[in-house]
């Protein structure tokens, strides 16, 4: 059962998004709910900023869906830090049952897949699924201090500073045009990429698909 086809087609009602200055310098800036000019988001540490962005994305998704917090059945979220601390701390801001997930770059797809499964099975009607990351907190977690005078190979990738979430609901709740139709959960496939600067190549063989 690697692929699940959702008979009741859970709907993506609305999204909440926020991104950092570097991300918003490009086309992405036009589409996010909030474009940050300060990558600290007014906080004292990058971790706190990441947590605040995630919290913003979750509440914005509810706001854009015109739903109240008390009607949400479940919050599914994760991030890149140890003990998925940003997601867990962001969940403190809400009085909603929380399910923490970790899948690195696939965290959001995993959250959507689980949310759709719960809704399709009839165990929940309204779920907020979200994820977030911060370049500076990820650098500290996985690589070197920001001020270290090391070189970056040209193929190295940057972790996004931003957060995004979606309000996913049962088809009875919303008749949104966007539906989650199926989910394919990927296997962990390690082809032996060891370059910390080339995470895209390490993750490319692990393919999971969410049909939307």
């Amino acid at each position, binding site marked *: 059962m690697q692929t699940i086809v959702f008979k009741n087609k859970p709907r993506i009602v609305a999204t909440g998004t926020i991104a950092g200055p570097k991300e918003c310098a490009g086309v992405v800036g036009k589409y996010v709910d909030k474009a940050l000019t300060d990558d600290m988001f007014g906080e004292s540490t*990058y971790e706190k900023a990441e947590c605040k962005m995630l919290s913003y994305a979750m509440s914005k998704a509810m706001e854009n869906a015109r739903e109240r917090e008390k009607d949400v059945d479940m919050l599914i979220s994760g991030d890149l830090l140890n003990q998925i601390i940003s997601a867990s701390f962001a969940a403190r801001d809400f009085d909603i049952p929380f399910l923490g997930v970790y899948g690195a770059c696939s965290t959001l797809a995993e959250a959507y897949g689980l949310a759709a499964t719960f809704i399709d099975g009839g165990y929940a009607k309204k779920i907020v699924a979200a994820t977030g990351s911060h370049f500076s907190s990820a650098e*500290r977690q996985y690589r*070197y*201090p920001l*001020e270290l005078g090391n070189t970056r190979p040209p193929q190295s990738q940057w972790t996004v500073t931003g957060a995004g979430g979606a309000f996913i609901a049962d088809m009875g709740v919303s008749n949104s045009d966007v539906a989650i139709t199926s989910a394919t959960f990927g296997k962990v496939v390690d082809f032996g*990429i060891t370059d910390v600067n*080339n995470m895209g190549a390490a993750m490319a063989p692990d393919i999971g698909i969410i049909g939307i």
Partner: protein
Amino acid sequence: MTGKNRQNYNKNYIAYVNSFDPPTKHLKNCFRAYMVGGFICCIGQFLREIFGNVFALNGDELASAVSIVLIFLGTLLTGLGVYDRIGRNAGAGSIVPITGFANSVASPAIEFKTEGLVYGMAAKMFVVAGPIIVFGVLAGTIVGLIYLFL
């Protein structure tokens, strides 16, 4: 790659990925490293002349004074957020001199300050420089023992 994971190791995939990596510009990198590294050494030599001629220092005192000033400069430029920009362009040119060592201690100190003075800054200060110190002391001990018995 050990044990069971070995079966997944895919030589073709790794070769495919590597084919997309832009080639390293060795000549350009070497030139930049030579210029910046050379410039830092020139500053060192300049300091040596000053301390030797103006303050009349010599021997170990002179070497220590020059090192102290270079370490101070490396740390100051790290704190000002300049050294990482120099390092991005100069590569080994700014990593190998003593200023690079100062940078490798100062940069985690800044980075982990948010986790507290004792458990953050002081404890994590040597995450980058730690191995250099460990193997430096080890190598020194081995060489010292060889000298002792020769």
